[in-house]
């Protein structure tokens, strides 16, 4: 099992969710996060004073999938979330040791 974590632009989240649902992903965890990468932040001006806003709002998606599906899921996210401009985000995959479904106690693949 793998954990696919993606940090993407907020306005791409709906497209990504639809694409993943079409592929067969049945659930995910989503959070509103902020951070920065190579694009750094941006500048805002209030009454003439410039403010460097270091953190940019992003959406983080976390999905636990079968090993076999990991590459496809990553591919779908990258394809759907891509705008080609700086700040599109990152996707990474990490191994998972154990998953348990809280309602039934099912473990691992049965819990996905």
């Amino acid at each position, binding site marked *: 099992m793998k954990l696919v974590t993606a940090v993407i632009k*907020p306005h791409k989240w709906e497209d990504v969710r639809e694409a993943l649902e079409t592929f067969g992903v049945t659930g995910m965890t989503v959070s509103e996060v902020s951070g920065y990468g190579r694009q750094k932040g941006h500048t805002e001006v*209030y009454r*003439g004073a410039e403010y460097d806003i270091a953190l940019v709002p992003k959406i983080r998606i*976390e999905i636990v999938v079968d090993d076999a599906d990991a590459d496809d899921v990553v591919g779908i996210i990258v394809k759907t979330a891509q705008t080609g401009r700086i700040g599109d985000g990152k996707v990474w995959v990490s191994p998972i040791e154990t998953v348990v479904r809280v309602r039934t106690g099912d473990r691992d693949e049965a819990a996905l």
Partner: protein
Amino acid sequence: MDGYYAFMLVATALVLMMTVPALALFYGGMSRSKSVLNMMMMSYIAAAIVGILYVAVGWSMGWSGDGTFFANPFELFWLDGVETSDYIFVMFQMTFAIITVALISGAVADRMKFSAWVVFVPIWALLCYFPMAHMVFSCTDDSLICGRIGAQDYAGGTAVHINAGIAALVLVLLLGKRFGWPKDKMRPHNLTLTMLGAGLLWFGWYGFNVGSIVFGGESEEADMAQFLSETGRTFANTTLATMAAILGWLLIERIMHGKATSLGAASGIVAGLVAITPAAGAVDLSGAVAIGLVSGAVCAWAVGWKFRLGYDDSLDVVGVHLVGGIIGTVLIGVFSTSDGAGGIDGLLYGGGVDSLVDQLLGVLVAIVYVSIVTTIIGLAIKYTMGLRISEEAEVEGIDITEHGESAYDLHTGTGGGGGKTGVLNTASKEGVNA
């Protein structure tokens, strides 16, 4: 004059609305999310304290008779001797006292002890506002600014805006900078509140300026004719100056910083209203537009001074009210026309420099009087009970430390508790942005 009386009932309610809630919203939106309740409370408590004090001695100090600086505080104490049919005029002037004190609060955001504010408010009203109202508005022959100097001030360029602006500057210098300023410039947390507050201020300002008519009193017919012509003039001037100031502010912003901002538009509204306040009766439509444009543009530039000079006038009370108040009061000497309420031609209409000199003198007297008295009050509070909350309290947030509240609980499922309830605040949720 039934129409006038009915109008004053409405105008008085409008001016009270300028403080509660318009100014509170305007300032509250510009403060940080951890300080918004304290910011708004400073306006609300000012209304409560100053209003009652005004009935006790404020009206008497202003309107009971002669005096260079103020009239006998006990002549009409607690409105003893004032007919109830005149109460509405007391109430109208009371709302001016309230908003003048409340205006100061924007400068001291995030860091002034609430108890120190509660002590400062009545003492400052007593020693600065009530005398200034007498010197400017009651206009007895011996009153300093109106009677002796002869400076024009229709609705409070000196008595309200320069008065509050100077007091703000003095308090800021005595209080010191907020922890972290100016490296952290502390941006506004909710500009929709500020836009709403600015709009409500504009609306209420019609009560403020148009309601400030003073009648010649020669005959009922003459007063009625004056009522009809002068309210039209002050209403139109108030409107046009404000519109021009929005454009003036945004133009300077666009040139200096590349963007026209919503905070700039809201600030332009206030800068224009402030500047036309003293001049609403004196100038014609072109004069109103000129004063608005100049005020919007100059204030947009003046709000940057604090970063160069290093005083933390948090929400720009100095940059908007002091600067705008001076602009409006002084430019009367340039743009006033003899058709206007004062019957005096300014520099541009062939009246020479006399009016301009009177206006400058009026401004100077206001600045000197208010800066001296406010410094004494501020120092007295600073070295007895203290003006500032602790650094720890300031960092945690003045809403929680001074009022035991927080303005926003945006986290679902955690109930109250000031956003400090722990892990659930960071829990993930589905359907975000859906």
